């Protein structure tokens, strides 16, 4: 009997550390073995920046953004920052979660311990954010070295990318719990690619005619791109707050759905 009670006491003491950190630790241990994979993940936005921002940028005149004249590379860079935050979050929370859910049966094992579904969801999202955060800082350093950062506000671009990551992680993970087969992931590509290409990442939103512009204004990646762009160029306005509220709300809704769905899927 004594053994039992002391065991309970110990677990109560340990739980002061949020259990979701155990999920993060597990992912860290897995990724520690694939450093190349981790490092090259950082490459994608940098390559896009060099190619489109610099290469194509030589063909494009500087233009106005929120009343400031911005060079094309400085315009594209924050777009890549936000877009890569989204891409990373989507990958981590769709393919990799689905694999763990359906094939590795990882969560079945985890939930056989005192961990709860909400710990799993928070843990996975925390991990995705940490990884994304490291990438964002790296990318900002590249921007700084290339002279593409115009304002101290840029420091806040890191939390802004975390917010983008959080919003997309939560929503995509929620969608993943509804996926029936790998075929359904074509829908993920179908959603992500247009967001990547059309969220005013490579050209100003003024290129869109009339109503189309307002549709784009309502999409999540556009809110992330424009937020990052306002921060790195220093053209911050009250409208920036709209983007923040939008992304926070999106993330919270996603998280609520995930916790419920994981419970329904795993604790039948």
């Amino acid at each position, binding site marked *: 009997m004594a053994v039992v009670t002391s065991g309970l006491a110990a677990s109560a003491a340990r739980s002061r550390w949020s259990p979701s950190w155990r999920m993060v630790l597990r992912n860290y241990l897995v990724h520690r073995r694939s450093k190349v994979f981790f490092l090259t993940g950082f490459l994608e936005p940098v390559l896009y920046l060099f190619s489109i921002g610099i290469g194509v940028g030589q063909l494009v005149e500087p233009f106005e953004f929120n009343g400031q004249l911005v060079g094309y590379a400085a315009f594209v860079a924050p777009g890549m920052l936000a877009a890569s935050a989204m891409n990373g979050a989507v990958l981590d929370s769709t393919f990799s979660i689905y694999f763990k859910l359906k094939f590795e049966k990882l969560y079945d094992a985890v939930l056989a311990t005192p961990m709860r579904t909400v710990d799993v969801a928070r843990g996975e999202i925390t991990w995705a954010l940490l990884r994304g955060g490291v990438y964002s800082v790296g990318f900002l350093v590249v921007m700084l070295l290339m002279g593409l950062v115009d304002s101290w506000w840029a420091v806040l671009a890191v939390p802004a990318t975390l917010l983008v990551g959080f919003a997309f992680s939560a929503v995509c993970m929620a969608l993943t719990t509804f996926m029936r087969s*790998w075929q359904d992931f074509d829908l993920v590509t179908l959603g992500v690619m247009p967001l990547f290409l059309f969220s005013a990442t490579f050209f100003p939103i003024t290129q869109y005619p009339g109503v189309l512009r307002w549709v784009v204004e309502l999409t999540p990646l556009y809110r992330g791109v424009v937020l990052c762009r306002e921060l790195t160029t220093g053209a911050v306005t009250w409208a920036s707050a709209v983007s923040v509220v939008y992304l926070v709300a999106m993330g919270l809704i996603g998280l609520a759905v995930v916790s419920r769905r994981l419970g329904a899927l795993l604790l039948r």
Partner: protein
Amino acid sequence: MTSVHVDPAPGRIERLNRQVDYWVTVYKRTWRGSVISSFLMPFLYVVAMGVLLGGLVDSGGASLDGAPSYLAYIAPGLVAAHAMQTAAGETMYPVLGAVKWNKTYLGMVATPLTPADIVTAHLGFVVFRVATACGAFLLVLGVFGLFTSVLGTVLAFFVQILIGLAFGTPLYAYSAGLKDPTPFAVIFRVLIMPLFLFSGAFFPVSNLPDAIEWLAWLSPLWHGVDLTRMLTLGTVDGPLALLHVVVLGTLAGVGYWWSIRRLTRRLMH
């Protein structure tokens, strides 16, 4: 001593013919999934980069290799890049999967088929995928009047198949000998993605710093992009075009030979 009646070994064509039903069933179960990546994605790129970004590009002067607009410049580049990506997609996971996960190849090699037959049929499927994806792409762009001549467009179509094989065969060989799939993600990020971005599809490689411009000339995709662009814009430079064909053809040939060698070692050890 025992002797057995021996059927003559079936010919190469016959052995390929025997695999047609397999690849037809593969296509029947995967075509839906490939519609988006094969037919829709390239157009999204054309609209985003060619039309919307292109609206900001100053198309006057010689900055675009003689193309009348940024859209006309980028369209052949995107087609060629699409040939590369389609071929890469069909020769990485599907090949390793057929060896390692669902072991389709192991079942095949227990029949009269040889590894060379298996490689050839699989590459035949890659050609089919590249031809349909790039053929449709070229057709639509052609209908919008982006290309100068029908003959040039038709030749460009065959160039896409050559590009597909120039990438497909070496990647096939690489995949056929792999133990696990982690290098694929890395290959995609350090090979496919940089080639896509820096091989003259989006901007002239002369815009790159000199040192990197040299690297771009080594890129097989640059040879494919430049050849496709010459043909669609009607600006063919004979000797250079020949060089492009030789480079791509050599890659395809060496890759094919290497693929058979690697798959034979993997399956018949």
